[in-house]
C-alpha cells in the first residue's frame, strides 16, 4: 500500500504500521489501524481527544505493545517488539504534549541531556552542553538565555525548548503532539518554517495538531482517526478545514457571529488608564452586564497580565478598576473573588485545576463557604453543589470522587468553569478557555459561554485564536505590546480583516 508521490514514482515508506490493535481494560483504543509515513514527508495525524492519536504514537515509540498480528516496519526493518530504546536509537523522536521537561534545570541541560545519557560516567562538560543547546535553538531561530532554569520561562518558550531537545537527537522522524498549542502566530510560523527545513533535509515530521489551518498549511497528507479506527488517508490538496472537522467528528458545524448589541446594558466593570510598567499601559474599557468582551493579541501583548491584575493577583501601578460603581483595590485574589470576579487560568494543567485531586474537590475549591454547615464542610451540601453544576454544564463524569485528570480536556475545562460559577461571579475572565480542548468540545464550551452571557454575567474572553474571539464576542479589543491597538465589532468586520490586523 505504498503511495504515489507527485512525480509518480512509488516511494518506499519510512515507517509503516499495519493491523494495530490495542485494548485497555475492555476498551478498544485502536481498531485495526494502519499508518504510513514517507521519508521527508510532513504528515498530519488528526483526530479528537480519545480518537487514538496518542495511543498510536505510544505504540510507535515502544511505550505500548500492540496486540498480536501487528506489523511495524521502519526503514525496511520489520520490528516485532518495539521498545523505547529501539525507537530512540533509530531516530524516532517524540515531542509529547506535556513536554516532559525539568523545570529546575537550565535550558541548556534540558535540551542537551540526551547527549549525556548512555555514555560512560564522566564529568559533565557544561561548555559542550551550552554549545549543543545554542546550536539547536539556533536552528529554531530562537535565542534564549540557556543558563537560566526552565521554570523562569513561559509555556511558549518551554515548548520551544522541548522542540530543540528533539532536534538534538539524531532524528529521522519527529512526532509533534500538539506542538503549537501554546505558541503565538509568529512563533507558530517560525515552527512551520523549521518543519519545512527538517522535511527538506529528509526528516519526516508527523504533526498532531487540532489547529486545522496549520495542518492545511504544512502537511502533504493527512491521516484521520475517529474512535480508535482509521477514517482514511487524504492528500491535503483540495481539503478544507470544515471537511477535516467533519471527518474527525462525523458531524458538521457552522459558525456564526454571535455578537449582539449590548450598549443598553448597564456598565458593570469600568477600567480606566490601568497600567503596570513593562506589562501593559493605559488600558481603559467598560464591560457591561451580559456582554462578552473579547481580548485578543499575541503572546506578550499583556493579555494575561491584565487579567491577573483585574483578578487581584497583581497590583496596578496606576489607573482605576471600578466594579458596580465602587473603586476596587484588591489586596489578593480572595478579595477579587469575594467581590464577584472569577478568573479561569490559561494553564489548566498546573494553575487552573488541581490535577491529582477529585472532580468534587476541584469544583468546590473556590466556594468552600457555600458548603459549610456551622464551621464544618457538609458532605451532603458538597455533593449537592457538585451534582448541580455537573448537570447544569452537562459534564460527563464517572464518580464525583474520581481524579480530575481522568476527564477529557473539554470536560476538565467545564469543571474549571463550574468551579468559578459556583462562586456566583459577576465578571468571569476566561483566559484561553479552549487550550487543549477538542474541536467538538470547543463548540460546547462556547455554548456555555453564550448561555452565561444571557443570564447577565459579564465575560472577558481572552484568546490568541482570533476566530474564537471573532465568533463569540460582542466587541473585541486588540492588544499589542501592552496597549490597546484597536477596537473591533465582529458585525462590522470580517474574520480575515481582523486576523490581518492582529497578525500584522
Amino acid at each position, binding site marked *: 500500500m505504498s503511495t504515489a508521490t507527485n512525480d509518480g514514482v512509488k516511494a518506499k515508506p519510512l515507517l509503516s504500521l499495519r493491523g494495530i490493535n490495542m485494548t485497555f481494560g475492555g476498551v478498544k483504543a485502536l481498531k485495526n489501524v494502519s499508518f504510513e509515513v514517507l521519508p521527508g514527508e510532513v504528515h498530519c495525524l488528526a483526530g479528537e481527544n480519545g480518537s487514538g492519536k496518542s495511543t498510536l504514537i505510544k505504540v510507535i515509540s515502544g511505550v505500548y505493545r500492540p496486540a498480536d498480528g501487528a506489523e511495524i516496519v521502519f526503514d525496511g526493518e520489520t520490528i516485532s517488539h518495539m521498545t523505547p530504546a529501539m525507537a530512540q536509537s533509530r531516530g524516532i523522536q517524540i515531542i509529547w504534549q506535556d513536554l516532559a521537561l525539568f523545570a529546575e534545570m537550565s535550558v541548556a541541560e534540558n535540551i542537551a541531556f540526551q547527549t549525556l545519557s548512555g555514555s560512560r560516567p564522566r564529568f559533565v562538560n557544561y561548555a559542550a552542553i551550552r554549545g549543543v543547546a545554542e546550536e539547536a535553538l539556533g536552528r529554531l531561530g530562537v535565542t534564549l538565555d540557556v543558563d537560566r532554569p526552565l521554570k523562569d520561562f513561559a509555556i511558549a518558550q518551554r515548548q520551544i525548548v522541548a522542540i530543540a531537545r528533539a532536534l538534538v537527537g539524531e532524528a529521522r522522524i519527529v512526532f509533534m503532539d500538539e506542538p503549537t498549542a501554546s505558541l503565538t502566530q509568529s512563533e507558530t510560523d517560525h515552527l512551520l518554517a523549521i518543519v519545512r527545513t527538517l522535511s527538506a533535509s529528509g526528516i519526516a515530521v508527523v504533526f498532531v495538531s487540532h489547529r486545522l489551518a496549520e495542518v492545511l498549511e504544512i502537511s502533504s497528507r493527512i491521516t484521520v482517526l475517529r474512535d480508535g479506527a482509521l477514517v482514511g488517508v487524504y492528500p491535503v490538496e483540495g481539503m478544507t478545514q470544515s471537511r477535516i472537522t467533519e471527518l474527525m467528528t462525523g458531524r458538521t458545524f457552522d459558525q456564526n457571529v454571535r455578537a449582539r448589541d449590548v450598549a443598553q446594558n448597564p456598565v458593570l466593570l469600568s477600567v480606566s488608564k490601568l497600567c503596570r510598567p513593562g506589562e501593559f499601559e493605559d488600558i481603559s474599557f467598560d464591560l457591561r452586564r451580559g456582554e462578552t468582551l473579547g481580548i485578543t493579541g499575541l503572546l506578550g501583548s499583556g493579555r494575561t497580565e491584565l487579567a491577573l491584575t483585574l483578578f487581584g493577583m497583581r497590583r496596578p501601578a496606576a489607573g482605576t478598576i471600578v466594579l458596580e460603581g465602587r473603586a476596587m483595590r484588591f489586596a489578593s485574589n480572595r478579595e477579587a473573588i469575594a467581590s464577584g470576579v472569577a478568573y479561569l487560568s490559561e494553564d489548566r494543567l*498546573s494553575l487552573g485545576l*488541581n490535577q491529582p485531586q477529585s472532580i468534587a*474537590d476541584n469544583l468546590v475549591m473556590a466556594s468552600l*463557604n457555600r458548603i*459549610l454547615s456551622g464551621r464544618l*464542610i457538609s458532605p451532603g451540601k458538597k455533593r449537592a453543589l457538585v451534582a448541580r453544576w455537573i448537570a447544569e454544564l452537562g459534564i460527563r463524569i464517572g464518580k464525583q470522587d474520581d481524579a480530575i485528570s481522568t476527564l477529557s480536556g473539554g470536560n476538565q475545562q467545564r469543571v474549571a468553569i463550574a468551579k468559578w460559577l459556583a462562586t456566583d461571579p459577576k465578571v468571569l475572565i476566561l483566559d484561553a478557555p479552549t487550550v487543549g480542548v477538542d474541536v467538538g468540545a470547543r463548540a460546547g464550551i462556547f455554548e456555555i459561554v453564550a448561555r452565561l452571557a444571557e443570564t447577565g454575567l459579564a465575560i472577558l474572553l481572552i484568546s490568541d485564536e482570533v476566530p474564537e474571539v471573532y465568533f463569540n464576542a460582542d466587541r473585541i479589543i486588540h492588544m499589542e505590546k501592552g496597549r490597546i491597538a484597536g477596537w473591533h465589532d465582529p458585525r462590522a468586520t470580517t474574520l480575515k480583516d481582523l486576523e490581518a490586523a492582529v497578525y500584522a
Partner: protein
Amino acid sequence: MNALAARFNAIFGADMAGPLAALAAVLIVFGFASPHFLTGATFGSVAFQLPELGVLALAMLMPILTGGLNLAITFTANIAGLTLAWTLQANGGIDAGSGAFLLGTALALAVGAASGLVMGLVIAFTRAHPILVSLSMMIFLRGLGEFMTRGGDISGFPTFIAPIGHGSILGIPVPLLILIACVIASHILLSRSKLGFSTYMIGSNIESARYSGINTRKILVLVYMLSGVMAAVAGIIMLARFNSVRVGHGESYLLITVLACFLGGINPFGGFGRVLPVFVALIVLQLLSSGLNLLGANQHLTTAVWGILLIVVMVLRWLSAKFIRLVK
C-alpha cells in the same frame, strides 16, 4: 469478591485495607508464637506506650500532607515539657498546685505553637524547604534546651500529675484517652474543616490552590502551629510518664513518626492520606514491638524489624497495585 471489596471501601476507605491486614497478621503471628501475647498485659503496655508516639505522629502528619515535614517535633515536645516543668518548679515543685499546672500546660502549648508559628512563617513567606526550616528549628531547640538544662533531667513534680501518665479512667489509660481525643480532633479537622480541605489542596498543588483563592500562607502557618501544639501535647504526656523532662527524650521517635505516616498510606509528597489508617499503623508498630519483647528479642532487633516491615510494605503495595490492574 469485588462486591465485598466495595463494601469494605465504603465503610473503612480503601486506604484502611493495608493497615488492617497488617494488624490482623501481627495479632495472628504473635498469638501463635507466644501464649502471653493475646492478654490484657500486652494491650495494657501498648496502651501506655502508644500515646507519645501516636501524638507525635499526628504532629508530623499535617505538615506532610501539605508536602512538607516537621523535623522539630521531638524537641518541640521537650521544650514544651520543660516549660511546664519550670512553671511547676517556680510554683513550689512537688507542692505546686493545680493552678500552676494549668498555667504551665497553657504555656507549654503556647511554646509549641510559637515554634510552629516561626517555622510556618518562614516556610510560607520565603518558600524555603520545610526540611531545612524544621531542621534548623530542631537544632535551635535542642541547643537551647541543652543549654538551659545543662543536659540534665528536671524532675520533682506534684503527685497529681502522675495519673496523666499512668492513671486510668474506666479501665482506659489516661494517655490513651488523650491520644484518642487528638486522633478524633485531627480526623475531623482534616476531613471536614476548611483548613483540612485547604491542606490537601496545598499538598498536591499549592499554586492551583492559590489561584482558587485559598490563603496558602495562612494555611501553612496554621498547619505548622497545630503541629507544634500537637508536639507540645506529646511533651506533656512524656513529662507525666517519665516524671521527668530531659532534652532528647523521645528523639528516636522522630523518624518512626514519618514511617508510621507512610505505613498509614500518607502520600510522602503530600495531598493524600487520612488520620485513621495512620492510627492503625501506629498500633501495628507498637504491637510488633511488644510481641518481639515478649519473645525475648532485643530492643535493637525490634527497630530492625520495623525497618524490614516498611520495606515489605513498599513491595506489597507495588504488588497489590499490579494485582488490581490485572483484575481490572
